């Protein structure tokens, strides 16, 4: 199987007065898995429906391998699609479901049979072919939907929140399987999801969308370490980054919180802006230790491997810090918080990133 190169050029869609998607431009390499990530209503599903041909664009172009396809009917685009609800035809067996696209192409019965069984075996549902969708589990339905999408060996695979209907346990497994399958087949894939962990785990590159606009398009690490704006900074990473609005003075940030910079540190600019630091980049130390911001523990959430502490800072405001599982701090304790200046993220008043430095991955 080969994969298309997919290009979106200034793709826009409006419904009446509402602009669901604004000038989205993306370049996706053959065989790549790109995630469209964002909260609900951000336009990612709209983008997918435009790429599949179910919606017509208000403006912009879509190219598969340099061929414009925006005027083509879905059936002529050579794509496979898996919907959030799987959309299996309830009155047909799984075999008939998977065979459907091939039947429509008027392929011979023998060839249809072979291809259906091949793809079913690939997805591990070969023994379930005679069952109806209602008679198999959610995970199996999802695999059947995938089989149906892949049986015609498309150049592009579209996945609309394929994992959100699965149980948490099954989800993790499915995540790995889909990625492995995709790499094996080499089919270009576009995945829509609102789950940032999913996107980070599966995608070669991620396009973050909000309010119909592209926020950032890059590899997962770049989104994590160099978020282009406060939206991406807050959206990526779990638990989310601590973000504060305020005024940058030579000593640090004054606003929602009083955040002094460590000695020798200076903010990249003065005046209004945002400051961000990830909970995992903070170290909690006993109050007496030097070089720390003092605070009192308000909340302790045990997450197993780690502990999430919510602290009330001495100068005002709150911060969340992620500490190793055994940390002894309890609500009411007074502690110190330490961090490296490289771990700070600075944003201008419009939320855009300032400064080029890489934030370190973890800790100081």
């Amino acid at each position, binding site marked *: 199987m080969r994969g298309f190169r997919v290009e979106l050029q200034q793709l826009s869609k409006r419904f009446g007065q509402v602009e669901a998607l604004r000038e989205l431009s993306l370049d996706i390499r053959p065989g790549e898995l790109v995630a469209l990530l964002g909260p609900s209503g951000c336009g990612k599903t709209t983008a997918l429906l435009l790429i599949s*041909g*179910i*919606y*017509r664009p208000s403006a912009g172009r879509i190219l598969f391998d340099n061929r414009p396809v925006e005027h083509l*009917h*879905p059936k002529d685009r050579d794509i496979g699609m898996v919907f959030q609800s799987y959309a299996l035809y309830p009155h047909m067996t799984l075999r008939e479901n998977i065979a459907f696209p091939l039947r429509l192409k008027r392929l011979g019965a023998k060839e249809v049979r072979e291809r259906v069984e091949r793809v079913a075996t690939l997805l591990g549902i070969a023994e379930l072919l005679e069952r109806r969708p209602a008679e198999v589990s959610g995970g199996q339905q999802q695999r059947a939907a995938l089989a149906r999408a892949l049986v015609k060996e498309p150049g592009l695979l579209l996945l609309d929140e394929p994992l959100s209907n699965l149980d948490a346990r099954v989800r993790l497994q499915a995540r790995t399987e889909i990625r492995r399958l995709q790499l094996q087949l080499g089919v270009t894939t576009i995945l829509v999801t609102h789950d940032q962990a999913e996107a980070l785990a599966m995608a070669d590159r991620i396009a973050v969308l909000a309010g119909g606009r592209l926020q950032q398009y890059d590899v997962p690490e770049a989104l994590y370490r160099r978020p282009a704006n406060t939206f991406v900074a807050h959206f990526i990473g779990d638990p989310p980054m601590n973000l504060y609005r305020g005024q940058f003075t030579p000593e640090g940030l004054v606003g929602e919180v009083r955040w002094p910079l460590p000695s020798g540190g200076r903010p990249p600019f003065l005046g209004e802006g945002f400051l961000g630091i990830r909970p995992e980049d903070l170290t909690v130390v006993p109050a007496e230790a030097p070089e720390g911001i003092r605070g009192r523990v308000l909340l302790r959430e045990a997450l197993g491997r780690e502990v999430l502490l919510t602290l009330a800072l001495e100068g005002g405001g709150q911060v969340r810090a992620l500490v190793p599982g055994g940390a002894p701090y309890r609500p009411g304790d007074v502690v110190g918080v330490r961090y490296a200046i490289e771990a700070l993220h600075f944003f201008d008043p419009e939320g855009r990133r300032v400064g080029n430095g890489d934030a370190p991955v973890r800790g100081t």
Partner: protein
Amino acid sequence: MRGFWVRLFFLGPAGVLVLLFFLLPVVLTLFLSLTDLSTVTFSQPRVVGLANYLELLRDPSFPLILKNTLKYVALTLAFNVFMGLFLALSTNLLPDRLGEAFRALWLLPRITASVVYVLIWQGIAATAPYGLLSQVTGVSVNWIQQYPWAAVILANGFVGASFGMLLFSAAIKAIPTELFWAAAVDGAGIKATVRYVVLPLLRWPILFVTTYQTLSLLTSFEYILLLTDGGPGFYTTEVWALYAYHLAFSNYYGNARFGLGAAMAAILVLVGLLVSLLYLRLFNFRHLLEVPRIEVE
């Protein structure tokens, strides 16, 4: 372009039928009402403007017909709605199977062919020794001839009540059980529950049934035709729709007067249109218009 043919294909059959047998007749009825078309003038009708309408207004039986129509609609409507409500409420208070059995029984008149239904009425209402009613009450009369209005209203009512019964019943079944539990906890007995929980929730269905059946009764005449044919005597139970039908199709006068009948029908058509539009407004048409989520054909 392709979309056009797809639409035409799907809407075609229904479209043609509706055009020929709904829209065209409406136009024709309106047009014919302005002519003097009758069996006598069939090949050479003349346009007479509003002459038919004037003739109707001057017809001495006209006020009687009007009165009959209003009486018929009002009384039958009352029966339909109240009986329908009663049936729905009571059958839903019974164990499921029993309730269903009663509802099925009351559905019988509706599914029975009108001719058979009227036949049964005639059999029961006959004079002694044949008619059950005469036997039971000891009074031997033809009950239909003797009490034509009661017969007309009840005969239509038994059929009409099932409409409300079904709609109200469906609405009652849709009430979440928790509401009843909450009412019980609050201390409501069956009467209070019906009064404060069920009836308020039935307001829309009641309104719907009332408006729908008003329209339906204004234009119905089949059972009256079969039962009394507008009699006994001269126009005792003749309603508007029946009069129009008689004018156009019966041979009372030896000359079926289509133009005149059409005038009466035209008024009915206009009333029908008005009430339908009102009723569209009332029942919030917009929320039925869900937007399609596929844009290609």
